[in-house]
């Protein structure tokens, strides 16, 4: 659980942008430092000071990240959604996104960026057991037995279903398959 305006410097501080995103070993650094720039009191709400990945681990035990408004604001660095995927994130749920982060998440096929009109930050606690139902477009908090509607993925669903922008372009005949 994170708050509003989680920017890309919080998601992956610039000093770490030097690692290769294609080398299987080197890119683990991105998982290790994913969300490491989030100020302590904001990391893992409501208590805070919850590390996203621990010690030398590059994988997080949290596969769903929930944020508030304007998630991913700031830089166009694709290392931001990439580091979250490397850490094992499968979905992000936010009230709204900054547009480049949203676009990078979809076009690069890193994870599904869901939007939810309900402000979840006060409701869900870090560590709650969450389930996303893709057919019903709902989020269920199994720990608290509450269900929320997610917004339709709308026009980007075709890219998400294809896997990424390249697969989408191949499917639609824009680039040769």
């Amino acid at each position: 659980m994170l708050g509003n305006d989680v920017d890309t410097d919080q998601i992956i501080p610039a000093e770490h942008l030097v690692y290769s995103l294609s080398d299987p070993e080197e890119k683990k650094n991105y998982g290790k430092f994913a969300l490491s720039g989030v100020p302590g009191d904001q990391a893992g709400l409501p208590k805070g000071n919850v590390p996203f990945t621990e010690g030398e681990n590059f994988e997080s035990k949290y596969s769903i990240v929930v944020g508030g408004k304007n998630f991913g604001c700031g830089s166009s660095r694709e290392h931001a959604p990439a580091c979250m995927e490397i850490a094992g994130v499968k979905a992000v749920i936010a009230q709204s996104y900054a547009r480049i982060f949203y676009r990078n998440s979809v076009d690069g096929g890193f994870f599904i960026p869901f939007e939810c009109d309900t402000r979840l930050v006060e409701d869900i606690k870090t560590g709650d057991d969450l389930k996303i139902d893709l057919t019903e477009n709902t989020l269920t908090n199994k720990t608290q037995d509450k269900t929320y509607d997610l917004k339709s993925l709308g026009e980007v669903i075709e890219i998400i279903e294809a896997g990424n922008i390249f697969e989408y372009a191949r499917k639609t005949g824009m680039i040769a398959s």
Partner: protein
Amino acid sequence: MGMTITEKILAAHAGKTSVAPGDNIWVDVDVLMTHDVCGPGTFAIFKKQFGENAKVWDRDKVVIIPDHFIFTKDTHANRNIDILRQFVKEQDLPHYYDVGTDNYKGVCHLALAQEGFNRPGEVLFGTDSHTSTSGAFGMFSTGIGNTDAAFILGTGKLWVKVPESMCFEFTGTFPDHIMAKDVILNVIGDIGVDGATYRAMEWRGDAVMKLSMEERMTLCNMAIEAGGKNGIIEADEVTTDYVRQRTDAPYKVYHSDEDAKYFFKRTYNADEMEPIVAKPHSPDNKAKVSECEDVRLDRAYIGSCTGGKLTDFMAAAKLLKGKKVQIDTFIVPATREVEEDLHKEKIDGESLIDIFKNSGAYLGEPSCAACLGGPKDTFGRASDNQVVISTTNRNFPGRMGSKQAHVYLASPYTAAASALTGHITNPAEFV
């Protein structure tokens, strides 16, 4: 229905007579820019998707400007420059500005302008969110990630959702001590860091059109800090004069129609503007300088794509001439051209570089430097709980290198005035 400049440019590049906000269209790309942080990832995706031996769609439209992590001993960062070199060699790319050569430029957004890649009416994408800077030339420009950049490298096209436009009109004349930085910080403070999300920020009015190209670039540069997709200013004689000094390439000037539809039109009186800072830790945390004069500072930083242009240093030098700074003050020209101009430009016979040296400021080499923190040995990188006044663009937690640091964003005038006193200071009394 009339169209805005942004809509007209996008329509023309999609082969359509008109487009409307919300349309998803494929546009032809005139220029793709990348740098040392995002180039290596972009090239890896390009090769994976289009083949090891694939060629870029148009060698002449690819511009590679290393600028982020340049003067560092970090081995990974230096390895990334080697990856740029290798790709440039494989692809035989003409527009590469290599580190350690006479051809090195520095910060990509100003280098694009200085090397003639910013041309009215064109579509430019870059793997950097401040690519919005180029919109000052009446062109569509925005930041993208590695995947989209790799897609362009292979196809020369990208899908774009046509943004709604917001109109910010400034009538009258900005007072002498007001800079474009005050104007953009004021607007971001008004609409918030997500106030322009998915939208174009179009700047209009007498006061805007009286600004130099560099000042116009500052306005468009920080569109992203309000979440904007692009910033744009219609091209006029000031624009075409600048462009013609830099390139013979053709361009096309577009104007917004009288009946173009805007998300909103907001009019400001330029004469009433006051110096503005963004307080920690968000660019929309606006305050008048006059409300923050009790803030004690540890250092001042003047540099970056936002605040490291010649105009920015002329302003700072005007205030620092013949005086001593009271806090550590870092001067980082955005590009080599700016650095050379610091030697050439004089105020009452003294070069800007001498003015800075004699004031006790530290001089760095052209690059992004501490604007985004960077490797530990980066010039001017913030440490501990320092309080910094900076002409850069972001004051997110940790942005300049230390999560505990407090960064105030300000104009070069305000940063220089504050460097002279050691606390946030209104430049009005100095200008």
